[in-house]
């Protein structure tokens, strides 16, 4: 196998494509967690987004409706989580797990008649530039609009959290809901919004899989990417820019596996697949040991129920 420069360009391009669902889902979950809510339902919301996006594409033959619809269905399904955890004050961990289990089941049920239907080609942008420029062409051009959005999202998220007033509100609610509440902020409403936003992004991440990355519907097609996205948020120590870097590393590992299998490399692929999880545990240990590092970005009230006596 020749490792020429144009091949590396194509390789980087494919790593970027495989990291998109991780970036989208993790950026959404990051906002949710920064508001103090731990939603373990990422996998469930993604798979619901995947089936509803694909089903809408088949039914309406319109990709725009499919994409928007997948985000909308992500919002609807996360509303269940929001209602339970915020209005009925249920435990975040248990509710999130229920959401994932429910989502995987429901998607298989809804997708029964969509198995085996071929997908539609998703339009890519600047396809002529992709071919004409060596190395940079396959990296920068010839991707779907969702990919460009995904790569802008961490920067937008970072700007939102650090530079806008609303971002400050989200962080305040996540770090100290009681003081935020005393400042007149409606903690529950803010958290609802962050949960629904997370749902929309996870829905989009799922639709990216079923409409763009591998355009078809397969049961359980998210295949654990939701859990990796969840790990990614921790790996990135709740910082949006590091989510982007982490997603490229984790996405890169996936692509690397395929190529290593192809050239018959000795390291078992399973060890590479386990790396994202092991790296996340190591990062967790490192940040948890040092209380200053933990204070840096970790939402202090993560996963805790907030209840205000009326």
């Amino acid at each position, binding site marked *: 196998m020749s490792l020429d420069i144009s091949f590396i360009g194509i390789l980087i391009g494919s790593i970027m494509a495989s990291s998109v669902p991780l970036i989208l889902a993790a950026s959404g979950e990051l906002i949710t967690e920064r508001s103090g809510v731990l939603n*373990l339902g990422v996998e469930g919301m993604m798979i619901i987004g995947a089936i509803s996006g694909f089903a809408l594409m088949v039914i309406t033959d319109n990709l725009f409706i499919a994409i928007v619809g997948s985000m909308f269905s992500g919002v609807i399904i996360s509303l269940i989580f929001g209602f339970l955890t915020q209005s009925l004050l249920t435990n975040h961990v248990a509710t999130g797990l229920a*959401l994932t289990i429910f989502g995987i089941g429901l998607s298989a049920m809804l997708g029964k008649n969509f198995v085996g239907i071929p997908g539609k080609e998703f339009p890519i942008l600047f396809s002529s530039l992709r071919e004409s420029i060596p190395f940079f062409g396959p990296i920068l051009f010839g991707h779907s609009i969702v990919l460009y959005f995904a790569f802008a999202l961490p920067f937008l998220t970072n700007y939102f959290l650090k530079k806008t007033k609303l971002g400050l509100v989200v962080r305040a609610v996540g770090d100290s809901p009681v003081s935020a509440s005393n400042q007149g902020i409606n903690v529950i409403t803010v958290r609802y919004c962050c949960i629904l936003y997370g749902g929309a992004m996870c829905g989009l991440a799922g639709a990216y899989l079923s409409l763009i990355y591998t355009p078809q519907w397969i049961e359980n097609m998210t295949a654990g990417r939701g*859990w990796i996205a*969840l790990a990614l948020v921790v790996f990135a120590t709740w910082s949006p820019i590091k989510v982007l870097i982490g997603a490229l590393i984790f996405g890169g590992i996936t692509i690397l596996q395929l190529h290593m299998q192809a050239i018959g490399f000795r390291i078992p692929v399973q060890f590479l697949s*386990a790396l994202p999880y092991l790296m996340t*545990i190591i990062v967790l240990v490192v940040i948890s040991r040092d209380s200053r590092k933990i204070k840096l970005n970790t939402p202090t009230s993560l996963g805790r129920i907030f209840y205000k006596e009326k």
Partner: protein
Amino acid sequence: MIKIEKRNDVPMTLYFFTPFIAIILTILGGGIIFYILGFNPIEALKFYFITPISNLYGLSELLLKATPLCLIAIGLSFCFKSNNWNIGAEGQLTFGAIVGGGVALLFYNQEGFYILPLVILAGAIGGMIFALIPAILKTYFNTNEILVSLMLVYVSKLLLDYLVVGPWSNPEGFNFPETRQFSNSSRMPLLFEGLRIHAGIFLALAAVMLSWFILYKTYLGFQIKVSGLSLKTAKYAGFKGKTMILVVFMISGACAGLAGVGEITGPIGQLHRMISPDYGFTAIIVAFLGRLNPFGIIFASLVVALTYLGAETAQIFLQIPKYTGQVFQGMILFFLLASDYLLFFKVKILNLKKNELRH
């Protein structure tokens, strides 16, 4: 007008009654989903909840599936009661099955009464060691046990995948991702000829009795319950928090490991990729539905096992994917958590006119 008040203490009758409300609501919800999908809801629910257990074979299958769920949930109840969020039972089950299966493979061409106890012991120790990872990281590095135990699930599944594809794969197995068949001495004895229910059920029952004894009759159980109710009180009372965290994780891991070993030495008889249909995650639902009470967990494991069986029957008769079992499992937990609201809050319906007269 509706007024919501916080309760001062949780009424015990309601505490054990709400799981039944959750089950009824789940069945209603399932009926609605079947109706939307174009099935006759009554008939579909009958295929789901009655057909599977209307014969002896079905009942045996119900107990077969309830066994690992019950075992794992019993273990989890120790963790959850003391506020330790071990959600990686699936990983502990897998690792227990790997260690137990490894021992069984050592004896693949031997017979002897000592083999099965060794295999079972190895499985329990495997699960225990794997559960110690999040426990040690939590106690000594202050790491979040939810995330660590969850991540380890995928690590253990990948390890199993590596073993059955690579070093442990059956040399005469035409490259199928599975190990050799275990010898008969590594298999759980069957209870009845022709049925799959095996002696593993006694392990589950023993776990129920033992956990009841530990939780309600020993000092350790008292410590666990107090720590769950109030960490401050536990500290004030001088309980050694770190040791307790390690102990509850070890109990929980050992139970999950036993469940794993029960599966591979029971119905499966070898190691392959699909040793558990997410029993480790579903057992979390069982533990909650059973109210973390040993006897409640027996009941809950039967209910949740029925959703697995029903899904298989519905797949055959209604041609719907067997993942639908998870719809029911998810709904049970949703409704249970939602109905818990009634435990902590009193919903009062006030008569507005009377109130106005009074003021």
